[in-house]
């Protein structure tokens, strides 16, 4: 809502604060002032009073000669907009060029609608800005959705009045009525969408440009002047917050206005020239034949007030806010009128605003006003009364506002207040439908009294034991580990493109019904697309790093069932390295290692994880795996297809791992007390080397060793594979494993013979499988 300082003063004659302090009051009472702009910025060039020297009729136009001192310009003006020869009109001069509507943002046109008339006391060449606009400023005030009443000068002025303790004065609204036998009538057939519809017939109008003071107010409010009748309805809407509409009375069929719901596919051409196709249930004003206005949103072009208009039907009504909002949104229109109805207008202010408009019309156009109002419905009763104990106010606000101050504030805002036994009895004014219960009154008092007066404290109440941050600690430990391993943590959008998801071979995914762009349509079912995008961005910019990880939700669906779960995604990147600084490249086993490390952080031994080769459409065959924990899928990973990298210009190799966090968290239950074994007896170390067929996995050998260890209850402390070898001197098709066994007993020094016996048992066990040969017993060709 834009309001100028001078316009505020029309309602607040005693206002003397500088604009900066007025803006501070707005802010402190809940209205952000977006900007304070000098009135000068709304006009273009220097403003002069010019003289209309001559006007030659050319069809609907007049060729007008306007003079400012020695300079003269000729312009084509619609004939209705030409004042008497010799009158003073507004001329803006910029770079020597005359502008007849010198307003910022206004396009220069071949022909213009009217010359802006100036008061007679001005002489040719007078500085109009200095004389008629002056040192004014415009506040752009942001009005919150609950304060429809402040989409008006009246509402904003009331806020200042309450703060400054100065009187609020309403503008004059007096006029004389005459009896006119016009025959118009109103039939309200939609009281549920329009509880109150009223209007007045006004005749003998002459359509002219508005006087300068109205044009000035409209321009400073960001509205375009049209003609005196339309401008007056707009000005009154700005002043009072009540949208009004004037129909050309001559164009209303059969002199009857119906307030009714539209029929399906009914059409209307609105003032902006658009044809609107209406749906059942939208509220319209219609005559006997057709809709003539979209109620509360925009008038129809057929009944528009124009130069030929002689009589108008002036509408002032109360339209249902939800109905206006739905219709405006459905048709994609938002107008000054609709935004006010959406937030609610003052039901008891309807006639007051209409009267102000009638008075201005009379003052302006020597109009004849028909006696009485044509009415359909009645304004709803709004005399809500709220009981507010004073200690409730001070308690909730945490500040010692006095009863007198509370009452003064509420009265200043237009509430009726009486004090009885420490309880405020508050009558809510008709324009404050947002105030419903006692806490709303607390806010009103607090707002004007000032939030700076709230006394800070810290909530003290019975102890809340809090919760165990298990998941939080778990994810923090994992993140720390990965950062220390050289990876960067990423945060990517949860919305990805459909193509990216299809490329993963995922069929069931969740789509957004109303996406903003095709890049953000699907809720990610995997962290892969987003993280791969991160690698691509960095590759494109020539960045190098070891890789990325992200912890975040993925979104899954099975038919109509949706769920989300937290996952960890890891990308390892072997980017092309310079020869100076070589590191061991990442591979599938690094992925496996990272998952084992995460398992170790959670407290899962790597023996509990079951690994299986598994194909994925975006991972290289033979280099992809899935991993299970107690029969549930924990994650998957592998080497990203080189073709995918080439397609996106990523150099090097990429390895991807994705792990679900929920199963990890479930497993990582706390088990106390821990069992410690801190034996200080010496250990005995033995290495064993074996040879097997290349098709025999390490797990075969490992499980065989473990079986023997269990069988003889060996005091085995450590069992690690330290070498895998093949090629010469081993024959083709064979490979070797070398592993270390560390024995240590908790309660004694192990005897040499005891350990030897164990090692022998393990060796025998291995041999008995028939698939394992001891390296030392193998006879190689050249030996």
């Amino acid at each position, binding site marked *: 809502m834009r309001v100028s300082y001078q316009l505020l003063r029309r309602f607040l004659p005693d206002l003397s604060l500088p604009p900066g302090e007025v803006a501070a009051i707005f802010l*402190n009472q*809940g209205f952000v002032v977006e900007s304070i702009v000098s009135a000068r910025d709304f006009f273009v060039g220097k403003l002069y009073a010019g003289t209309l020297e001559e006007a030659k009729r050319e069809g609907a136009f007049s060729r007008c000669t306007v003079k400012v001192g020695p300079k003269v310009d000729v312009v084509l003006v619609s004939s209705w907009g030409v004042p008497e020869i010799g009158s003073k009109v507004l001329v803006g001069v910029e770079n020597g060029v005359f502008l007849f509507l010198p307003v910022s943002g206004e396009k220069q046109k071949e022909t213009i609608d009217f010359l802006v008339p100036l008061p007679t006391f001005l002489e040719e060449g007078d500085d109009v800005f200095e004389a008629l606009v002056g040192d004014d400023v415009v506040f752009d005030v942001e009005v919150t*959705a*609950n*304060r429809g009443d402040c989409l008006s000068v009246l509402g904003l002025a009331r806020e200042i009045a309450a703060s400054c303790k100065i009187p609020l004065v309403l503008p004059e609204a007096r006029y004389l009525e005459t009896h006119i036998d016009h025959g118009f009538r109103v039939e309200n057939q939609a009281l549920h969408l329009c509880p109150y519809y009223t209007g007045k017939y006004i005749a003998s109008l002459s359509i002219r440009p508005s006087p300068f003071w109205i044009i000035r107010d409209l321009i400073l409010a960001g509205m375009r002047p049209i003609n005196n009748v339309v401008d007056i309805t707009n000005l009154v809407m700005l002043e009072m917050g009540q949208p009004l509409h004037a129909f050309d009375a001559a164009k209303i069929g059969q002199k009857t206005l119906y307030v009714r719901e539209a029929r399906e596919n009914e059409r209307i051409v609105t003032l902006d020239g658009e044809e609107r196709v209406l749906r059942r249930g939208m509220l319209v004003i219609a005559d006997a034949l057709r809709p003539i206005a979209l109620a509360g949103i925009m008038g129809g072009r057929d009944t528009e007030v124009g130069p030929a208009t002689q009589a108008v039907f002036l509408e002032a009504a109360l339209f249902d*806010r*939800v109905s206006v*909002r*739905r219709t405006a949104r459905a048709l994609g229109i938002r107008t000054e009128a609709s935004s006010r109805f959406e937030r609610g207008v003052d039901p008891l202010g309807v006639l007051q605003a209409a009267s102000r408009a009638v008075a201005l019309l009379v003052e302006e156009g020597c109009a004849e006003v028909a006696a009485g109002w044509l009415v359909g419905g009645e304004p709803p009763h709004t005399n809500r009364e709220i009981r507010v104990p004073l200690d409730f106010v001070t*308690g*909730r*606000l*945490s500040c010692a506002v006095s009863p007198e101050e509370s009452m003064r504030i509420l009265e200043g805002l237009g509430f009726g207040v009486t004090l009885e036994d420490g309880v405020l009895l508050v009558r809510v004014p008709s324009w404050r439908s947002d105030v419903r*219960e006692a*806490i*709303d009154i607390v*806010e009103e008092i*607090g707002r004007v009294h000032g*939030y700076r007066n*709230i*006394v*800070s*404290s*810290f*909530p003290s*109440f*019975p102890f*809340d034991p*809090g*919760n165990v941050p298990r998941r*939080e600690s778990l994810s*923090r430990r994992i993140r720390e580990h990965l*950062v*220390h391993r*050289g*990876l*960067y*943590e*990423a*945060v990517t*959008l*949860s*919305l990805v493109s459909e193509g990216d998801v299809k490329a993963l071979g995922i069929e069931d995914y*969740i789509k*957004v*019904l*109303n996406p*903003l762009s095709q890049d953000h349509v699907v*809720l990610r079912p995997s962290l892969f697309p987003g993280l791969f995008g*991160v690698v691509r*961005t*960095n590759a494109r*910019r020539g*960045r*190098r*790093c*070891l890789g990325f990880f992200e912890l*975040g*939700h993925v979104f899954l669906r099975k038919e109509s069932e*949706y769920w989300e779960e937290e996952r960890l995604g890891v990308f390892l990147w072997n980017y092309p390295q310079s020869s100076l600084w070589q590191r061991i490249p990442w591979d599938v086993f690094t992925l496996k290692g990272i998952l084992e490390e995460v398992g170790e952080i959670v407290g899962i031994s790597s023996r509990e994880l079951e690994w299986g080769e598994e194909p994925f459409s975006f991972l290289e065959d033979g280099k992809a795996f899935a991993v299970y924990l107690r029969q549930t899928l924990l994650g998957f990973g592998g080497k990203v297809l080189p073709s995918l990298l080439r397609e996106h210009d990523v150099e090097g190799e990429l390895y991807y791992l994705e792990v679900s966090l929920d199963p990890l968290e479930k497993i990582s239950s706390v088990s106390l007390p821990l069992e410690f074994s801190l034996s200080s007896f010496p250990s005995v170390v033995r290495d064993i080397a074996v040879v097997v067929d290349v098709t025999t996995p390490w797990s075969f050998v490992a499980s065989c060793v473990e079986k023997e260890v269990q069988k003889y209850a060996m005091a085995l402390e450590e069992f690690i594979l330290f070498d895998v070898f093949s090629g010469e001197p081993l024959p083709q098709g064979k490979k070797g494993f070398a592993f270390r066994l560390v024995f240590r007993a908790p309660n004694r020094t192990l005897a040499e013979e005891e350990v030897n016996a164990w090692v022998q048992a393990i060796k025998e066990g291995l041999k008995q499988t028939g698939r394992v040969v001891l390296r030392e017993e193998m006879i190689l060709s050249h030996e």
Partner: protein
Amino acid sequence: MIEEIEQYFRDFTQELAQVATRDELHRVKGKYAGRKSKFPVFLSRLKILPLEERRVVGQKLNEIKLLIEQLLKEKEAALLKEEKKEVLDISLPGKREPLGAFHPLRIVMDEIIAIFRSLGFRVEEGPEIETDFFNFEALNIPRDHPARDAQDSFYLEENLLLRTHTSPAQIRVMRKLAPPFRVIVPGKCYRRDAFDATHSPMFHQVEGLVVAPGISMGDLKGTIEIFVRRLFGEERKVRFRPSYFPFTEPSAEVDISCSICQGQGCRACGEKGWLEIMGAGLVHPQVFRNAGYDPEKVQGFAFGMGVERITMLKFGIPDIRWFFENDVAFLSSFKALR
């Protein structure tokens, strides 16, 4: 002559102290111990002294000569030892593993969580896919309410959407817990805003909710003031001003003073002097009713802050899109503790 000999020794010790290499030592040795030293001259002068004096001076001369020889020997040994020692060029680069970095949003989120944990808050979670009821209706934002304008949503189905704020967690928390409690709920939110320097279709919030009998605006203000001082530093000022949210009453917007101008107004803060960091207020009685609480018996306050905005203010990041690009050049700025 005694005086002369002593001076000769003082000169020697001074020069010896300057010696750092064997070459230098060799030079000093030649000057004070070889045939070119002054000793032959002193000896010849000694012969012409009276006997009694000759004995005293001769003794001194001998003493000094032996001392010089001994000191030279010691120095030589010290230099030799130095040379045998391995030379350490500590200016060579260290052997190390490259470090990664945490994402700045997660750094700030962790910090916010840590502050509220220390103030006795518990941490809860809520789903990112929400129903219209939890996201809007229960928070006193009915269908066709103008307040929905500011929260254009991504819909998945008629009544299913991506949450536009973390506030639906207020209702979930109230249904799950019994007062009194203090809770924060961090998480992702989504609004149908096109990407620009200050808007993103996805962003993070931290919701706060405190429910107990007698909670007031002062409790809210005190809590937020402590939080802001801890996160931004002692010198920042906090300002509360009235605002509107359908689910709080009274409602407030919380501003912090601009770090550059301290509230005076400058270009960085758009001449405002203050920067908005969160919305807050007392829990609206209707929200309590919607969650099955009696607003006569318990009161509460709630707040919601945008993590992106706070992170941008804290680190001076000019563009919200940087967070989601994850450029290594950007992320590596957060390797160091900030």
